[in-house]
């Protein structure tokens, strides 16, 4: 920690958090290393793969392209915060039902991006789903089960 460290205060998954961070610490690293919320994954660290996608003040963002200092005062939701303990959201259930994950590395970012889509557009077409998830890379599934899972979740009552 250097003299440049900055105090921050934010809400993460409903919990108030205070910390002192170096400016260069990515929000993703802060979540993973300081808060031990390791569900947020880091793949490319330059905004291409989407694995680190989280919600900040209600909007999906890349947590590798935002510094923790910038989240001062923000409300953050990570994959750990989308469902209550021991349960899954209907979207997560749909991912499981459709085998929309294999290794699972991309899944947290996929789920957050899909959540953001369904909030804005509750009944998307498959093409809208593909567009919304175009910034999330998956090396296992071939994407088709992921699109099916999101469409299925959008049809749940």
């Amino acid at each position: 920690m250097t003299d440049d460290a900055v105090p921050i205060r934010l809400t993460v998954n409903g919990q108030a958090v205070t910390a002192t961070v170096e400016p260069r610490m990515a929000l993703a690293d802060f979540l993973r290393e300081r808060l031990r919320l390791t569900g947020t994954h880091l793949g490319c660290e330059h905004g291409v793969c989407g694995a680190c996608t989280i919600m900040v003040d209600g909007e999906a963002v890349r947590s590798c392209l935002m510094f923790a200092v910038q989240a001062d005062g923000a409300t953050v939701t990570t994959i750990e915060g989308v469902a209550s303990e021991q349960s899954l959201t209907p979207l997560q259930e749909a991912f499981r039902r459709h085998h929309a994950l294999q290794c699972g590395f991309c899944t947290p970012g996929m789920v957050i991006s899909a959540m953001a889509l369904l909030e804005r557009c509750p009944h998307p077409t498959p093409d809208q789903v593909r567009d919304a998830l175009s910034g999330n890379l998956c090396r296992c599934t071939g994407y088709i089960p992921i699109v099916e899972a999101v469409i299925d979740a959008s049809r749940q009552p």
Partner: protein
Amino acid sequence: MKPARFKYRRTHDLGEAFRLLEDGGADARALAGGQSLVPAMNLRLARPTLLVDLNRIPGLRGLRATEDGTVIAGALTRHSDFEFSDLVAQRLPILRAAMAGVAHPAIRNRGTIGGSLAHADPAGDWPALCVACDAQLVLNSRRGERIVPATEFSRGFFSTALSHAELITEIRFPAWPRNRHWGHQKMARRRGDFAIAGVIAVIDLGDGGQVSRARIVVFGATDAPLVAHEAGALAVGRAPAAIDANAVGKAAAGVAPFHSDLHASATYKQELVQTLACRAIAQALAGSNMA
């Protein structure tokens, strides 16, 4: 993949931002949406010693219309603000359509028009859109305000008219004439990826139904957006049905020498620009995109 050390200052005051940037010297940078600067920092292609965060300066984000129909965008207006704005959908439909094709939703939620213009990536949509729409850029610094037309803002590859410690504060889009049609075409290897080439066509029809003005803008394949004046001139004075889109496309492809790179050869880029120009004109004339 972690950025080098830097100092961080957040300010709520534009005047203080100018002072911090001036005092910070050549390696001080303004932080807007961070969707280009932060990747460059993570890759250590950029190593600013000081970041001045503009995000909490009030009044820099948002869209409004003036009485004469000009739409004014604050420099920190996010791409997604344009994408979901009714004002933009009604007054400047090309911007809304283009934003839906910029990168990905999570990037559009952070990336800003001002940041994109200042970054001046040849593949960026904003510099080309601003040229196509005759936008005026309002620049501010401690020396005061100046207004630069978008056509004079680009100075080549990743280069702009901005001087050190000068910031874009707003972008002014003049009201569209009643009978304006547009086409926006770009080609990338993957959805949301950087465009290898793009072409924008903005075509105005006069009272007699003839083309009164045609602006064709080529981007991505050139160092900066370029207006293909000769291509536009081929359409002016003609009825839409009498426009030879292939000839216009060919003229657009002659706007500059293209250079081969990792993604495409010069010949491919030339053919791509010609094809995209044809498509942009066809899209504009089809009128399917009228608001």
